[in-house]
């Protein structure tokens, strides 16, 4: 009974972690380069819609995912234009991007689709034999293809950030942009690149929600996941493994509260649903002390001729 309950939590939790993990890894690059993109939620919403709509009209889930990533990249560029080129306040720009994505996706949905419509989307794959193994079978070998993509991207992101010269530049630009500039690194270019990568990943996260998880689009489909992803970047101390840990913790807590309801355990529903959110806040508060690793120039536009 206990084992079954725990396995149930994990099986239910892993799919929930994917959109957080993808968006969080993308935002990690953005923040490491010194840009604070609060608009992840908006990017996810718009790309969830575009992904859904592509499948709805053309019928190809692969094209849907590609279209969603393209939209994410464009939204990243837009954020860059306003916050890097025009040096607008990043926090406010991010909120604007969120409102823009939310409003546009909702409007397009009402005009071109109207009501709840399901699409074919992408289902989980059953790896023969292995998926029949007890306990680990359904956990490891019976998941949506994007689950595997998301978890493979964890070591890939780590390699990019810590083992490539591009990653070194990203880390330098986000900490001491003037130092990077004076050894000939183009600060603006690196920040744009990081924003576009963040946008593409958020786009993929949005596509996962509509095409793989829900098989439909609804207004506000992301329900705050984009903001949680931003919080998880702090939570994970700007490291891929930390962000993965945070995404898992949050989604397992989420899965736990769902299962409580499914099993009909006598526990107040209202308290159960807030557990994951409270957990994130508590852990954030407790880990606040070790600040030294973060990108010190986070949120500050870079201006070479600023004489202050």
């Amino acid at each position, binding site marked *: 009974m206990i084992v079954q309950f725990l396995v149930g939590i994990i099986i239910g939790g892993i799919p929930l972690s994917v959109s957080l993990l993808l968006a969080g890894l993308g935002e990690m690059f953005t923040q490491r380069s010194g840009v604070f993109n609060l608009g992840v939620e908006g990017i996810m919403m718009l790309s969830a819609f575009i992904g859904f709509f592509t499948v709805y009209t053309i019928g190809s889930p692969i094209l849907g995912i590609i279209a969603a990533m393209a939209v994410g990249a464009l939204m990243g560029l837009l954020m860059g234009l306003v916050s890097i080129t025009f040096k607008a306040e990043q926090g406010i720009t991010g909120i604007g991007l969120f409102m823009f994505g939310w409003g546009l996706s909702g409007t397009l949905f009402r005009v071109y689709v109207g009501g709840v419509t399901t699409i074919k989307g992408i289902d989980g794959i059953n790896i023969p034999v292995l998926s029949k193994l007890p306990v680990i079978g359904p956990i490891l070998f019976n998941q949506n293809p994007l689950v595997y993509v998301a978890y493979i991207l964890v070591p890939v992101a780590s390699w990019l950030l810590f*083992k490539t*010269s591009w990653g*070194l530049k990203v*880390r330098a630009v986000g900490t001491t942009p003037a130092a990077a500039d*004076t*050894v*000939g*690194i183009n600060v603006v270019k690196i920040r744009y690149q990081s924003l576009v990568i963040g946008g593409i990943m958020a786009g993929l996260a949005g596509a996962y929600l509509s095409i793989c998880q829900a098989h439909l689009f609804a207004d506000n489909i992301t329900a705050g996941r984009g903001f949680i992803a931003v919080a998880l970047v702090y939570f994970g101390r700007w490291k891929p493994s930390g962000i993965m840990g945070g995404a898992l913790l949050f989604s397992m807590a989420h899965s736990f509260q769902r299962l409580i309801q499914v099993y009909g355990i006598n526990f107040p529903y209202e308290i159960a649903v807030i557990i994951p959110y409270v957990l994130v806040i508590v852990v954030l508060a407790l880990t606040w002390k070790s600040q030294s690793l973060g990108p010190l120039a986070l949120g500050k536009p870079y201006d070479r*001729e600023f004489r202050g």
Partner: protein
Amino acid sequence: MAERIQQLEMKHISKRFPGVLALDDVSITLKNGEILALLGENGAGKTTLMNILYGLYHQDEGTVLIDNEVIHVKSPKDALLHKIGMVHQHFMLVPNLTVLENIALGYFQNTRFKLDLGLVRKKMMDISVRYDMAVNPDAYIWQLSVGEQQRVELVKTLTLGANLLILDEPTAALTPQQTDELIDLLKEMAKDNNSIIFISHKLNEVKTVSSKIAVLRNGKLVHEGPTGSYSVTELAEQMAGRQINLPKSPEKSKFGDVMLDIKKVWAHNDQGAWGLQGLDLQLKAGEILGIAGVSGNGQKELADVINGVRKVEKGDILLDNWNITNHSAQKIIDQGLGYIPEDRLHEGTLPAFSVRENLILKDYTTSQMSSSIFLKKKVIDSFAEDLIETFNIKCPDMYTSCASLSGGNIQKVILAREITRKPKVLIAAYPIRGLDIGAAEYVHQRLIEARGAGMAVLLISEELEEILDLCDRIAVIYEGKILKVLSGSEADNRKLGLLMAGVTDEE
């Protein structure tokens, strides 16, 4: 090594910033193996000229030639491609990366994607051995002292292939001994066919290091020639455009009671380590006591604990026999403390507030300035007018914001506010940092007057000359403790320098 730059010429360079002509038709030349000293006061245009050469700014007029060919330096990347390197006054290092990673950062601008730290390590160790500059490639920048960081900057610049080095005020944060070492090193580099441009306003070191001198004043080149042809005093006059007499404290043998008594105080620094480790110090009425030391040895923490903005973990601080340990800043001010802070624009004033408001910042609650919740406009107006006149603060009117004043005038606003309150103890932290000689002269006169009026003045400074000129006694701070207190007459550059480096058992 690749071919060396034989000759650099900057011809007829002009640069305008909004409202200021920063450089006006400046031309300089430098040949291989020469060390050119670029002299001038703050704001004379030295750094601007070098930032143009390094591609950080762009000239409005004029050309740069290397070996008689015109070059266009649009960014530091171009400068490095032309083998020009620069060590900035504020080091351009990323604190949470290692030494090796900081160097690799510039090394890999155009090359492959995968990080090959082994290659950079080898390159950098070659340079480090060649010039006998020991650096640990795997240390993080934040773990290094200022002197070590400077070495990293030099190694970095050379590893990136530069053979024309620009050094912007390289000795600002060094002890006299470290300065001597640096000067030897630079001479060694020049012998090895590197060319060096050395920016400074310290005349003595310019005399020893350079083969050639160019003096800038208000954006114009006022003198260029071999180092030998002018004396230090003549150069000082060239720089300032007039005769300068920095005041010295008159001799004095009688001092008042102990006004500030710091007893074995311990406090943390911003990183959470011990910044003050049982610091002991007594300050008497009518004296100027100097705190000499390499920055980062507890000066900031000392000023903070006296002002009540940093927690004292152990020990006591008495102001005129009142225990003020861990009292609020307001209470300590009321007890008779005046403070001229290190960061004059952000800590000393509210930059967006007017001069008038900044002048009453510590007194607006007194019954003289306000009744119940209202400020007395007329009283405050005449008070501000008075101070602007007596302290000779140059501002369009009293409603001008402090941020729009020059550094010297901001310092006058702070001096006016603090000295007029007649504090028992006055703390002055780096009071002439970033000021030109004229403004420095003014500040020093006021401090000497404060001493004459019986205030106990604590002067924290990294300029040894300032300390030697003004102080009755000099305390050397090292790693959060007072290493030794010398009388003004027995102290000299060499003794202080050794103490600042932590050496006590010399003789």
